[in-house]
């Protein structure tokens, strides 16, 4: 007798009085949950296959469906959670490393929600963004200048190459392969319309998207997938990916199931085999090696493009960032341990790294102490969920933010965390043509533009409250933040005062 050790986590609840047996749910669910029982003349569901992506719920024309977490429970145990038990069953069956997708969902403390923002009252006025100009533009790149004048005493105005963003947010690295072509197309179109940038991730740049190069950051990762001359030339900036918040210390994972001919061609790899990037860059075993790669990339592009170095937030992030700030890089991107991914070993995703808030605050402090903050811009990602998170990140010291998960959610992602299976009913983390077609790139671009535009308005309102009318004056302005419910050492590390303490 075959015993099922792992019981379904979700229950598909169908209101029989509303269901009209149209069988749309059956067609929408690529996981094969729904089917029509012709004998009894009604729809039935296989709960075990459900991943709680809500596609069927959202598309059901009569609103007959709901998905609930199962009420079935193992004997309660404060130490052994259901997830811990299920994972053991799974490993006992497969003998393999557990894989997960998207960011760490566990109940670790986070800090954005424990930071409160200041507002002007009486002694200086708030600024009304509906009636006064409000500047959200930022520039990324090295700002290190020497004041020099020509023979007529006019300033010489040459500066290192910089990226110009209309809003301090960019779409973070998500590779073609891990996400669909339509996602990339939507990101590229939205980035162009918004005057910001999207990041190709490490899977190369599809031929058809070269036209968006002015709004594209291309990535050079340890697998060097899809990296060649034209790829670098097409981009506005180049990001060297040293690490990723969801999986610090290991390389990218793309399961073979997602490697279609087009993905393989773009990545310049064979079809049908897993694409697993090496954990390190094998030409970078130390900081001086990184400098060589930064300089090589700069040479290859005529020193006309900023170079970003992306690292995961780890315990020693201060020293790492200090090294990067002296490596010739123009931007440091720090990815926190809540950051998303298309596939990562569960144990690494859930246990390695530190929150981006702490990493950001420490890096900004350290670079200032060493007087090298001007050498680089700082971009942070790894669970920026709202414009308030973005504003707090800037006040802590960031120049701009990367959003990945938030962008995917705007495209329909319901955070079912099954990207690694290659089946995504929302057409996002899949390469199955029928599923990919569900995401219309124009509609997707429109939703992304709306999201960032909404954040921009909210940023303007919150800055206006503080009496600030330019992002430049918000950056690193920690006096505008107060911590609530934090320990002394958390406050010290973040460099903010506790709520209630005056100026």
């Amino acid at each position, binding site marked *: 007798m075959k015993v099922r050790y792992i019981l379904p986590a979700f229950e598909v609840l169908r209101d029989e009085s509303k269901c009209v047996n149209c069988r749309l749910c059956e067609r929408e669910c690529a996981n094969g949950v729904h089917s029509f029982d012709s004998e009894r003349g009604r729809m039935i569901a296989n709960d075990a296959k459900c991943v709680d992506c809500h596609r069927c719920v959202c598309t059901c024309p009569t609103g007959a469906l709901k998905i609930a977490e199962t009420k079935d429970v193992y004997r309660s145990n404060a130490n052994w959670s259901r997830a811990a038990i299920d994972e053991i069953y799974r490993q006992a069956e497969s003998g393999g490393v557990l894989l997960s997708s998207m960011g760490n969902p566990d109940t670790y403390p986070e800090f954005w929600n424990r930071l409160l923002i200041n507002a002007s009252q009486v002694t200086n006025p708030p600024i009304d963004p509906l009636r006064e100009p409000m500047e959200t533009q930022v520039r990324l790149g090295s700002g290190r200048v020497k004041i020099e004048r020509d023979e007529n005493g006019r300033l010489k105005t040459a500066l290192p190459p910089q990226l110009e963003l209309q809003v301090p947010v960019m779409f973070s690295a998500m590779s073609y392969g891990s996400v669909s072509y339509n996602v990339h197309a939507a990101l590229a179109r939205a980035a162009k319309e918004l005057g910001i940038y999207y990041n190709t991730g490490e899977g190369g740049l599809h031929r058809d998207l070269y036209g968006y190069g002015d709004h594209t950051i291309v990535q050079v990762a340890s697998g060097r997938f899809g990296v060649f001359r034209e790829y670098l030339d097409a981009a506005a900036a180049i990001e060297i990916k040293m690490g990723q918040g969801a999986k610090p210390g290991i390389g990218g994972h793309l399961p073979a199931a997602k490697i279609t001919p087009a993905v393989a061609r773009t990545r310049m790899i064979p079809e049908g085999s897993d694409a697993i990037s090496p954990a390190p860059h094998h030409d970078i075993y130390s900081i001086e090696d990184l400098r060589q790669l930064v300089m090589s990339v700069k040479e290859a592009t005529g020193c006309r493009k900023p170079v970003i170095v992306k690292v995961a937030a780890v315990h020693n992030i201060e020293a790492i960032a200090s090294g990067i700030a002296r490596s010739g890089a123009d931007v440091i991107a720090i990815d926190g341990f809540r950051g998303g991914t298309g596939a990562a070993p569960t144990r690494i995703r859930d246990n390695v790294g530190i929150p981006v808030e702490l990493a950001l605050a420490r890096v900004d402090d350290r670079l200032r102490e060493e007087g090298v*903050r001007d050498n680089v811009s700082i971009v942070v990602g790894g669970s920026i969920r709202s414009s308030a998170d973005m504003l707090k990140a800037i006040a802590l010291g960031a120049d701009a933010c990367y959003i990945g998960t938030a962008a995917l959610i705007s495209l329909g992602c319901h955070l079912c965390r099954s990207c690694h299976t290659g089946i995504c009913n929302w057409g996002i983390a899949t390469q199955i043509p029928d599923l990919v077609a569900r995401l219309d790139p124009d509609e997707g671009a429109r939703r992304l533009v709306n999201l960032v535009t909404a954040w921009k308005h909210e940023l303007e309102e919150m800055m206006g409250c503080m009496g600030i009318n330019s992002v430049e004056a918000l*950056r*690193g*302005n*920690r006096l505008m933040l107060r911590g609530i419910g934090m320990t002394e050492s958390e406050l010290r590390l973040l460099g903010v005062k506790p709520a209630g303490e005056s100026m």
Partner: protein
Amino acid sequence: MLKEGQYRNPSGCAVSAVIDRSGKPMSGRRMIDSIAVMHERSNGLGGGFAGYGIYPDHKELYAFHLFFDDRLTRKNTEEYILRHFEIAYSSEIQTRKLPTVTDEPIIWRYFLAPLPRKLADSHLDEREYVARCVNFINARIGGAYVFSSGKNMGVFKGVGYPEDIGEFYRLDEYEGYSWTCHGRYPTNTPGWWGGAHPFGLLDCTIVHNGEISSYDANRRYIEMFGYKCTLRTDTEVMAYIIDYLVRKMGLTLREVAKVMAPSFWKTIATKSEEEQREEIFLRKAFPSLLVTGPFSVVVGYEGGIMALNDRLKLRSTVCAEKGDLAFVASEESAIRRIEPQLDKVWAPAGGEPVVFELHDKEASK
């Protein structure tokens, strides 16, 4: 009680300034009369003046004005000064006892020349050498505070209404070609005279009305370059920004205005190519020195004054001219009080610097 510097103390204020561009000296009485009109803009918790050209007989020497909490501190401080400077002349600053000005510290004046050997060994230029000595005393010697350190100029300040402070220091007995002054309306009680304004470093002084919202962004940036914002006031951080940009980076005051109160990007786009080139460069090069929130400042320096408003003009500033005389004040009444008939009166736009300088700047040296 906490001393100024141990907390942020935003203030509302009155400012007034006058310069005779022909270089002709005028009595400090004028400024006292001018600021007294704006009595309502102060609350008796701080006032001060800066006069330029007031020490013509010692114009080669740095004039240090110091507050001491007690005599022992003065002795220790003088030991430090003697290790770095030759004291050409020193004395207690003569004051007039007034019932409205109380709790004054010990106030001394020193005319100093850096010790040539010590200066050469420091590998610093002379002004940097002096600035570092000032910072050392202010940061390291508790109970001593240098509140004026330029040549042929002096700051006079204290806790009280500005007109009373002017009388207290007997400013009617000083004559200078330009004067700035400040009446303070702090929102917290400063028990300490050093917290009053003007704030000065070398010959550059600032009087300021406002409360800037960019304070911590500006402070954390400027502290990268060796400055320490010990007073935690807007005026102090703005003085350091100006000192850094002018003395260390070599910008002109008009360029400094484009850093601190730049035009909006939209406005820059409408300017001439040459202006765009310069303004875009300055904004890109010093984004963290953009100052937001209300401010109206008057910068005093050897040979001139500059008035500057925040770019939204959230504080009033009025400028006026009468022959060689030029005026800046929070209110027109403060100017009319000392010069009823004016050739020209105007309110400069937000972010638009107004610079008045001596016709012959060299003569002031």
